[in-house]
């Protein structure tokens, strides 16, 4: 159905096709996508909170957060601007740890970031060992332009869902759109179903 591009051969990815979602290409750089300036975040006042539909909100200072059990994981990352980067190394706290024994009727959550960025996710997508609050990349503290000191990491969805500069999650009784989701991007963002934009 697609139109053949006369004389186009392309640069085939050097990986098995089951690791590269449709429309993506492999990059070895670590590109940056943000809507505005990189916010300046002071670790002394940094705070991570779980709020919203929960009886007792939870909150951690930077020091408290760093004493939580950390995991180091290897994950493939897929950005909606078409690049994918395989086998990235991340260190962070599993959301399962942060949400442990939490009573809630929430179905969705909104991640809130320093700088005002938000993104929405089904609660189920951040549970069961599928998401982290990452504070390290390649055994280094996470750089500010890549979302440091801490970013959400949800590798099975397009990377904008992995909110940079995260400061908390708000549990919600239903779905509500976040920042990119209101600005033309897909509500769920599954790279394997190529859910890039509204209506995909």
């Amino acid at each position: 159905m697609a139109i053949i591009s006369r004389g186009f051969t392309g640069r085939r990815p050097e990986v098995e096709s089951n690791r590269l979602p449709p429309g993506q290409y492999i990059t070895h750089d670590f590109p940056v996508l943000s809507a505005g300036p990189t916010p300046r975040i002071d670790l002394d006042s940094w705070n991570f909170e779980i709020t919203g539909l929960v009886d007792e909100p939870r909150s951690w200072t930077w020091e408290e957060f760093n004493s939580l059990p950390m995991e180091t994981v290897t994950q493939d990352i897929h950005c909606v601007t078409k690049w994918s980067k395989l086998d990235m190394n991340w260190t962070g706290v599993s959301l399962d740890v942060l949400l442990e024994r939490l009573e809630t009727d929430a179905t969705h959550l909104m991640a809130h970031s320093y700088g005002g960025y938000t993104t929405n996710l089904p609660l189920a997508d951040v549970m069961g060992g599928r998401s982290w609050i990452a504070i390290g990349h390649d055994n280094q503290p996470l750089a500010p332009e890549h979302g440091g000191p801490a970013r959400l990491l949800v590798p099975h969805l397009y990377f904008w869902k992995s909110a940079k500069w995260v400061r908390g999650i708000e549990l919600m009784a239903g779905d509500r759109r976040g920042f990119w989701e209101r600005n033309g991007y897909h509500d769920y963002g599954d790279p394997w179903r190529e859910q890039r934009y509204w209506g995909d």
Partner: protein
Amino acid sequence: MATRGGSSGIGETDGEPLCAPLHRRGSLSGAALYWLAAKVLETRVETHRVKSIVFERPTWERHIPGQHVDIRLTAEDGYQAQRSYSIASAPEDDHLVLTVERLPEGEVSPYLFDVIEPGDELEMRGPIGLYFVWKSVMAEPLLMIAGGSGVVPFRAMLRHRLAAGVEVPTRLLYSARTIDDVIYRDELEDRESSDETEIVLTLTREQPAGWGGYGRRVDRTMLEQVAWDPDRSPRIYVCGPTSFVEKVASTLVDIGHHPMSIRTERFGPTG
């Protein structure tokens, strides 16, 4: 119960009614964007590494300046590659224009630069994005800061401003390596002389004899001179390679511009 009441963040305040000129289907998830075949009418050499490709206007109604399209190439065996390109034309223009910088090691841009010619059809879908956009109804002074091919979406904004006949104070600060790397040079000169738009060039590598403009990378002093006073609340757009955008955006914050007034678009990983 929301987190942290009174957040003035991006996520909460961008409630401008930006009507997306899309084929709405009324579904909650918004409109679907279909792949369309767009016919190439003309290619124009802009610089030794940059070409504009002029397309017959696709069937969507109107884009908003600052939006981009996705281009998809397909090889004989079905292999496909996609990339994003900003729209360089105004919604009022007869044709759709993209402007592509040829990256020597690239997969898609050399194809668009070297191979595409009038009569070819390319698949595209769009228009995409509702944040890095400017409409002529926006009243704040308009400041655009471009590095290299980051000037592309600003051509759409400048042409839209002209077509709409609005008089918002407008400045473009554009950083290029040499005078020969300046994309849309003639058009920018016209715009400046006829249109009360201030175009400020800085040439970072080499300046022609008698050059009266800036001759260095964008820095704090330059931004203090060119960006309006933060009190005038300009609406600021920064577009270019990542390192350029990072530096310019953070310097703007240093000199007192509100982070929320600065919208960024990053074209590539390196500078």
